[in-house]
């Protein structure tokens, strides 16, 4: 066998990342599609089972670690970023993934999300956004649309929903992307996230077919979705539509507008995507259906130092400067007096 062929034999397949546990999500849940893609990407990029850790909080999505044949922790509600941070503090070499939802990640755990992102721990954060509390059987979430009627909001939710991506960008995330559970772009986005060195935040539109079915119908319906989503490509003009006949154009007030191509506007006139442009990424994060097509793909990506490496460097530098750890020297710091 050639070396390549040998490597192929050794290389894990997606099913090798499946644990022995039965998957218990509702039949038809969007989580299944995400689980399959994650397993596929783990295999594709050559991650090992023993070096991979999945950490979640509480909620439907947070059952995820049980279904991966890796190390995992199904922790407590909202706190997964803190557990994941601890894992990276202890062992920066592990591949750490965090799975969360719109309630777990943005409501009870909103604070931790901000801080794990700004510190830029090398953690992949997958936020399954189904715009509903599913595990507790259907209450409105921080991403539920205004006026949403649920069992806890019979007259309509009066909370203003937030944009997970705007939050992530404001929290200084170094990688921000969006994908859809059943769309072809999910695999690409996950792979990009996995390869990113730093906190990677991925919002995944996920259908809760029991309590919020069709929440993302506009973005998933085969016949019409291309008119409602904008597939981002770095360095390319922002063109969308089933017939690729529409685009995003910036008007004189730097406001984005949907324009039709051909009628005096060429592709070169459109906005071009630049993954490294912070203000552009924020502008994209504010574009919502139905006024705009909703952007999909990588919004923002920059290179930055990771917290766990910076901390390790401080330890290494301190040891280099002051010499190897010696307990006796530690005990003897300060003024000593001797009794004979």
């Amino acid at each position, binding site marked *: 066998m050639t070396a390549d062929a040998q490597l192929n034999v050794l290389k894990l397949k997606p099913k090798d990342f499946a644990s022995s546990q039965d998957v218990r999500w509702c039949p038809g849940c969007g989580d299944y599609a995400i689980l399959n893609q994650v397993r596929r990407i783990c295999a594709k990029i050559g991650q090992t089972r023993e070096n991979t850790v999945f950490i979640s909080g509480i909620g439907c999505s947070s059952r995820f670690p049980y279904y991966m044949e890796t190390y995992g922790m199904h922790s407590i509600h909202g*706190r997964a970023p803190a557990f994941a941070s601890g894992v990276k503090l202890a062992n920066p070499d592990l591949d750490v993934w965090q799975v969360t939802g719109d309630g777990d990640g943005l409501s009870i755990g909103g604070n931790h999300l901000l801080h794990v992102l700004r510190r830029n721990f090398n953690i992949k954060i997958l936020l399954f956004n189904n715009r509903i509390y599913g595990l507790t059987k259907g209450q409105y979430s921080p991403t539920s649309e205004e006026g949403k009627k649920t069992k806890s909001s019979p007259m309509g939710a009066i909370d203003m929903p937030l944009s997970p991506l705007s939050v992530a960008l404001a929290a200084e995330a170094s990688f921000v992307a969006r994908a859809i559970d059943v769309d072809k772009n999910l695999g690409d986005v996950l792979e990009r996230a996995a390869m990113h060195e730093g906190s990677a935040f991925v919002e995944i539109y996920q259908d809760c077919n029991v309590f919020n079915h069709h929440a993302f119908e506009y973005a998933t319906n085969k016949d019409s979705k291309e008119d409602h989503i904008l597939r981002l490509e770095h360095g390319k003009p922002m063109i969308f539509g089933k017939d690729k006949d529409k685009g995003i154009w910036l008007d004189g007030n730097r406001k984005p507008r949907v324009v039709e191509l051909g009628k005096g506007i060429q592709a070169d006139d459109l906005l071009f995507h630049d993954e490294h442009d912070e203000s552009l990424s924020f502008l994209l994060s504010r574009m919502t259906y139905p006024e705009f097509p909703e952007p999909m793909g990588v919004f923002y990506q920059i290179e930055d130092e990771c917290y766990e490496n910076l901390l390790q460097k401080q330890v290494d530098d301190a040891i280099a400067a002051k010499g190897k750890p010696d307990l006796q020297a530690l005990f003897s710091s300060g003024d000593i007096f001797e*009794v004979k």
Partner: protein
Amino acid sequence: MAASSNTEVLESNKPTEELASAVIRFAGDSGDGMQLAGTQFTDTSAIFGNDVATLPDFPAEIRAPAGTVAGVSGFQINFAASDIHTPGDEVNALIAMNPAAFKAHIDDVQQGGIIVVNEDEYSKINLRKAGYPEDYNPLDDEKYETKYRITKVPITRLNQEALAESGMGAKEINRCKNMFALGLIYWLYQRPIDTTVKYLEDYFGKKKHLPAVAEANVKTLKAGYFFGETTEMFPVRFHVARAPVDPGRYRKIGGNEATAMGFATAAQLASKTLVYCSYPITPATDVLHSLAAMRNFGVKTFQAEDEIAAMCSAIGVSFAGQLGVTGTSGPGLALKSEALNLAMMMELPVVIINVQRGGPSTGLPTKTEQSDLLQALYGRNGDSPLVVIAAQSPGDCFDTAIEATRLAIKYMVPVVMLTDGYIGNGAEPWRIPEASELKPIEVKHPVHEEGKVFQPYSRDENLARPWAIPGTKGLQHRLGGLEKGHISGNVSYDFENHQFMTDLRRMKIEKVAQDVPDLHVHGEETGDLLLVGWGGTYGSILTATDRARAAGKKVACIHLRHLNPMPKNLGKILKNYKQVLVPELNTGQLRLILRGKFLVDARGLNKVAGKPFLVEEIEQAIEIMLAGKLGDREYLTPRLHKVDLDDQDIDLSKFGINAARI
């Protein structure tokens, strides 16, 4: 005792009075540098060879309005020619830098005690700020003049004059006056000044690059010292001889510092990286500060975004195979409780240190209390047993931190280590241990065995489950807060399994008792009264017991370090005495447990006044108990430094509240 280096300023023509011990207190505005003066006096006395015990006391506000009683900061030192265990009951000498300090502390000074006041600060405006009535100056009050030996020293002016040539501004000069006061007190108690001179030169001169400030402070320190000698104000000086202590090398150590060193040491004994995850909270923050300065010992510190994240990240550290520790105080422990419960369920080794403070709620952040015992033992949902141990003195925090780590790793269990504001901020001489003599902490990480399915909830002889860490091939497993199936660790909703696992978690903690040494009774094996203490009250209980025994009373005491599980011989000891008294700085938390667990008629001495027990208060409670005067009362409370049977009922009318007496 090796000769301490003397300085030329020690020569004196004044007569000396020999003392067995002395309690002095520096008090002033929180900006007056009283904590520095106090710690310098402590360092000097420890290095001189006295036994020392300290009690810093500072306001919760960093800068409360200057000159007010709320803004008074104090530092008490007991230094002795013999073994001592408390910072002392009555103050022998008070240094009051302003009227507010005088007002706040005068009642603690013994009759005939020395009071040195900075008379420059007793202006009309400062007297008003201190809340004294118009046209009243306590220095002119005959009642004080007859009761105390008050010496009025114009410290502000003398300090200014000493530093007139320094070239510094009036404000900077004024900041040095604590050193003038310290110099004067050094002279009064015949202390060498060189330790402080060296400190000032190192701190201001080398560290802060302010040699002029260092020079000025040294100058006024000496000026204060010479002033004592030259002036006729002090007819006599005092001397406290060195204490006879075991030979060895010593240093002064603070409780929080000892805790930090203990964990750094424990990590090395276990060949682990210590990752200390914490959120700043009084009075535990100094543990974070100390450890943050130990990067070169391989220590990582993580200042988390909140208490919850600090707990969770520490658990993440332990899951990944290093030593995760978090530290906090009462309100922080409340926030950590859900995650702590998860660590109990996942059976991971993690240590939580709680430097207890006055509660409930925000309570008295800078004052000491022992009122988190029940929270530590039971403050979680469900049946959630874990190990709880408590340190008894500043130096003991070191050993307790190591023991907490050892138990956590051996039994795969979270351990709560309790200290308190008093021992955390307090200091004592500490015999430096030999690093090579410390016992390593055994750590076992399983590896994959071919053909064998890994069972994350299998058990060893101690009922500990295996600590399999990410990165180990073939041992992939998932942990979580849902009930675990025995052996497999898979999620289980089986009722029988839940009963079994709940029992097993309890039995595992009971198993820890095999590592808990039998209690040692201080005193006779049987007798009329047994005192039972835990944590930071050790010194005062021991001292009170010794005094009662010296007076021929059949009193003994035991001190609990292990609150869960408790020592195996505790139940038996409790039955060997006619009465049991449990002094605690809470309303009776250990007492509740002892009564519930051992069906013993334990009575309490309970105080929540922000301060440790005075020895005298415990002595008085002992007297009342032995005289059989307690009757059916379950507990006593000292009021205004006194335990009086007539002053036990709470009379709300004293506070203007018209309520029927209970």
